[in-house]
């Protein structure tokens, strides 16, 4: 447990000290969403109709952009090898890194999402559901992204490749995230969709660090 907290603390302080790295994904998220009213025209009806999808797609893309930070620098400077040698199980350390990644990218995106919903003319009663889907969904992005980030260590064009690998796996998340918000907008209950996203989180929480750790071992050996 100490090792887990130490990893989280280390990654958080690294992210805070190199502030620009951590805020880059967030700025990307905001800019992509602002492009849409300019691209499709500022008509409120159209924007409201596509708001849930745009916010979610932008969140997926921004998460992809932040993945190369996750293991690459540790891989380059040899920290990763020490993590492999550490007495604590690698899966636990990976979970710590995923948590730190979520705290520096998922959580800020979650906090700024209502503002972007406002930009996109989203109905006020959809906001709690938007926050709930993001709260359950962005940790899944960090966990799935961890697998991709570990797999492409040392690859050519790793940044583009990781998006190619991880985005197909996130499609179910996108589908249920958006349909939960649409259900809320049309006055239906979005409980079922939220439960499914919760199930995805519960399934990836133990399984993804396992796959990530296996990928890291292959990358270093």
């Amino acid at each position, binding site marked *: 447990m100490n090792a887990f907290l130490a990893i989280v603390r280390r990654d958080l302080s690294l992210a805070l000290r190199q502030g620009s790295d951590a805020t880059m994904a967030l700025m990307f998220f905001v800019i992509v969403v602002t492009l849409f009213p300019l691209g499709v025209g500022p008509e409120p009806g159209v924007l409201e109709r596509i708001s849930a999808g745009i916010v979610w797609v932008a969140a997926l893309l921004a998460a992809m952009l932040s993945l190369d930070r996750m293991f690459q620098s540790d891989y380059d400077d040899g920290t990763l090898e020490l993590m492999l040698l550490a007495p604590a199980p690698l899966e636990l350390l990976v979970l710590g890194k995923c948590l730190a990644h979520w705290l520096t990218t998922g959580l800020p995106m979650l906090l700024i999402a209502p503002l972007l919903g406002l930009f996109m003319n989203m109905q006020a009663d959809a906001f709690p559901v938007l926050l709930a889907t993001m709260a359950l969904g962005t940790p899944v992005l960090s966990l799935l992204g961890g*697998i991709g980030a570990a*797999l*492409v260590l*040392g*690859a*050519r*064009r*790793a940044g583009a*490749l990781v998006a*190619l*690998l991880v*985005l*197909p*796996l996130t*499609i*179910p998340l996108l*589908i249920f995230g958006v349909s939960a918000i649409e259900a809320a907008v049309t006055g239906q209950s979005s409980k079922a969709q939220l439960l499914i996203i919760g199930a995805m989180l519960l399934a990836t929480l133990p399984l993804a660090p396992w*796959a990530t750790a*296996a*990928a890291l071992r*292959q*990358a270093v050996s």
Partner: protein
Amino acid sequence: MNWFHWFANPARFMRLAARLQPWIMVLGLATGAAGLYYGLFDSPPDYQQGETVRIMYVHVPSAWMAMFVYTMMAVAAASFLIWKHPLADVAAQAAAPIGAGFTLMALVTGSLWGQPMWGTWWVWDARLTSVLILFFLYLGYIALVNAFDDPERGSKAGAILLLVGAVNIPIIKFSVDWWNTLHQPASVARMDGPAIDPSMLLPLMLMAAAFKLYFLYLLIVRMRGELTARRIRLLRLSDAA
């Protein structure tokens, strides 16, 4: 486990494959020709779909193969990671483009059938979307395997990706039961027997057998090519050293 290791010897595999290859080709051509004859000439048009039902004889076998090949690759990836089986990785890499081809064919033929039947080329229902994801997984695997300067590293990363992507296979299989989709539910592999007329089942099964043999044939060709390429690379390296 004995036979499992017996076949792990690439030289033994090469000899066996070379002997089997012509038989597989002959059998595949025979079942394919019979399946095409029954499918195109000697089976009735459907009472609702008319002649377009014949697309099924290509669409359904390719969709089965799309899932079968991925499952085979995932099993190969597991035996590569667990037992370091030297041929498993060659098999997975050789099968990937073939599987991607089958998946693309299932998507294209389904789309050609959907236009007259559903009135649209494409719908975003669960079955179609999950097969499209499968296609992306194939492409992602091929891209990942080829992204490393060290081929060994690419093989291992690819194997892990294959196992992660295997989640999608049961989703495809059961998507028509879990969701209320436009795509019809399973009508051949059902607990209470196939819900399809024997006159249509025969060409379908013949085509399915032909597709499987075709896959086996291509797999052997590609595996032999890959093994030869590896041998050449080793010889060059030992020459240079």
